[in-house]
């Protein structure tokens, strides 16, 4: 089976809108949280999110949106996009340039695109509201493709004239990790030569606030204390949005085009908890199984793993489950891998999380560092027994695991390797 590499990436995240800024934020543990103006009402107890800077998408009219001057996006494309589509479009443009892809490399039967977003609750709400207000035949003809789950893949496939495999993934916070896993399979099975994997979320009031009902959001008002994975004082996750795109290519394409990859994608695994619709398995059984399967598929033993980018979102139950899963997978390892959750810096990107943090792993591997777990003051005793990095280590990791888990108890683990 062909080897598969990450050859390009693009980032629009709360900690930076380009690879250089994101790398610096990861190294220096600079978070992307701000007090979010739409939340500043007495009836909303949640105050902070990971904001996307230099973009303004707080209008249902796409032509009102503001985005950095370097991007040119025609109205014809913009009019069908949700905010997450705009973030992803910009991330895709970065990734295409980063991977040095020419148009014929993008639009052909051997190049596909898998995407993950939860759609746009914001625009869905707006358009359904208009449907009731102005009448069935007067609601926007483009409201559907701009708002429903799948809007991300619809838009990107059309915008980049993708002709290969395409699909959207919907497993909540595991979605884009699933997308990456299945993209890897398509490349390994010889179905495609190149895959774009994209995740994006609106990260606005409508996307984030519904989680408050579940009591999963942090109520911290201080942006510096809001997201604290594995900390005893953590009180929930901090929402964020953005868009991230990865370019995956087979070795043959890497050689043909003469590009330098970030990392090799060795393999992946997935397993489900079979437990609860929204609560992770108390022992992290699905997550542990996913990691074990991923390591087996990659031909890697637990003791070879240098770094785990944890799913840990800073929720009470989830972080403990993952800590237990990590202990069960690496219990006998003489040297346990370093573990950190970069959600301490970015917040939780929901569908975006898996591919965003995979891009962080790619940057860490190429730049030779392991980002620390920010905002960790007092480790939750329940999360003891794993080697959580408190500060960034300038040690190049060779083998890296990326964990993702979603509603329904879906768990994905991805394995990356440094290119020698």
């Amino acid at each position, binding site marked *: 089976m062909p080897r598969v590499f990450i050859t390009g990436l693009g980032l629009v995240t709360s900690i930076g809108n380009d690879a250089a800024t994101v790398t610096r934020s990861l190294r220096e543990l600079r978070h992307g949280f701000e007090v979010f103006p739409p939340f500043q009402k007495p009836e909303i107890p949640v105050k902070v999110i990971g904001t996307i800077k230099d973009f303004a998408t707080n209008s249902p009219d796409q*032509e009102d949106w503001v985005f950095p001057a370097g991007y040119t996006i*025609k*109205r*014809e494309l913009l*009019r069908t996009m949700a905010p997450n589509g705009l973030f992803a479009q910009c991330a895709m443009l970065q990734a295409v340039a980063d991977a040095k892809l020419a148009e014929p490399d993008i639009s052909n039967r051997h190049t596909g695109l898998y995407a993950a977003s939860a759609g746009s609750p914001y625009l869905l709400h707006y358009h359904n509201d208009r449907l009731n207000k*102005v*009448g*069935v*035949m*007067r609601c*926007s*003809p*483009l409201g*559907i*493709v701009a708002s429903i789950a799948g809007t991300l893949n619809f838009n990107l496939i059309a915008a980049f004239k993708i002709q290969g495999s395409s699909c959207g993934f919907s497993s909540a916070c595991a979605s884009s990790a699933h997308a990456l896993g299945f993209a890897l399979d398509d490349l390994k099975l010889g179905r495609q030569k190149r895959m774009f994997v994209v995740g994006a979320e609106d990260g606005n009031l409508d996307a984030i606030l519904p989680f408050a009902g579940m009591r999963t959001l942090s109520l911290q008002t201080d942006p510096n204390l809001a997201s604290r994975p594995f900390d005893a004082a953590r009180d929930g996750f901090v929402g964020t949005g953005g868009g991230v795109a990865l370019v995956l290519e087979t070795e043959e394409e890497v050689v043909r085009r003469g590009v330098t990859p970030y990392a090799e994608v060795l393999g992946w695994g997935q397993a489900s908890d079979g437990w609860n619709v929204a609560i992770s398995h108390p022992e992290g059984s699905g997550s542990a199984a996913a990691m074990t399967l991923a390591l087996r598929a990659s031909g890697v033993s637990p003791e070879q793993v240098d770094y785990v980018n944890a799913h840990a979102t800073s929720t009470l139950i989830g972080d403990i489950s993952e800590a237990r899963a990590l202990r069960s997978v690496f219990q006998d390892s003489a040297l346990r891998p370093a573990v950190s959750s970069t959600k301490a810096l970015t917040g939780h990107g929901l569908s975006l999380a898996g591919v965003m943090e995979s891009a962080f792993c790619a940057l860490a591997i190429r730049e030779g560092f392991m980002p620390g777990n920010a905002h960790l003051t007092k480790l939750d005793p329940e999360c003891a027994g794993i080697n959580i990095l408190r500060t960034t280590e300038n040690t190049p990791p060779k083998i890296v695991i990326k964990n993702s888990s979603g509603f329904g108890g879906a768990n994905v683990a991805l394995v990356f390797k440094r290119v020698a």
Partner: protein
Amino acid sequence: MPDAVLPNQGTSKPIPQTNKPFSPEDETALREALKRCSPSAFESAVQFRKTGNAEHVPAVVIGIIERFVEPDLRIKLKDADDDLRLIEDLGIDSLTMMEIVILVEDVLQMTINNDELRNLRTVGDVKTFIDCKIRGLALPKPTKFIPIEHIGAVMPVQPPFLFLNEASVSSTAANGKYRITGQEFFLQGHFKDNPVMPASIMLEALGQLAVLYLLEGAPTEAGKVVSPQSIFFTGCEGVRAHRICKPGDILSLSIKPKRMKMPLATFEGAIRVGQEKAVIAEEITLTFLMVDAANAPVSINGSFEHAGNLSVSSAAPATRVPPLRVAMNATS
């Protein structure tokens, strides 16, 4: 393209006309709806909403279309040529058309059904359509695109004296194209070693387009049709030739009816080559008769039941040719 866009599902009811005066709130909403349109479109919309005067409608419609056209194509709308095609010339796809319709509905307080939309192919179609809707008139027949085979089948005139390669006909106008091939028999002598399309033939081509309009586009009484054998040339006014036309030129012909009352129909006509004016005819008048549809001669393969009587052409003895050129031959 999603298949949800075009199917015939126009089910919304017409908005009842209210006599409610145009309020400041209405004006605010109108300003918001038209915020990306030109100020003149907004002003026209205000005038229309205040007075109900349909004269303001074209400016509103053009302003709304312009707002949805990519900026680099907007220059085409400046000339406001009614023959400008929405898809081919302005890049408006069916989804953008829906955006336009919804904004027009909102701004002009009217309802347009999906099945009415399909026939709108040019800027002129849209203007006429909305004008008819607002005035409560019957909708015009849609613009028909008529390929050469069909032209040959319905026209009394036939090759080698047929000077239309393609045509489109609506109830308000007809447009056609003819490419001068250089093989036309008369170019051998017109002129010696210097083939130039005779102006008389160009006027003939306009006359042929007017004949096609009478047969395919003109509104007729119920159960009646225009008899192909009944159409003859009677006169023309204000004919000027502006440009020498030679083999390779593509003549873009257009005629519009000015007056029509049996047995006379008067048209204005023009021929362009690209953007250049070639021939202008202020008036071309034809005579025609309507007959009961049941008694009309059936036209098959361009052959009619009886031959024409004024033809000076011997090239197509079994077929009718319009008499137009009889009077024209001397003018070139």
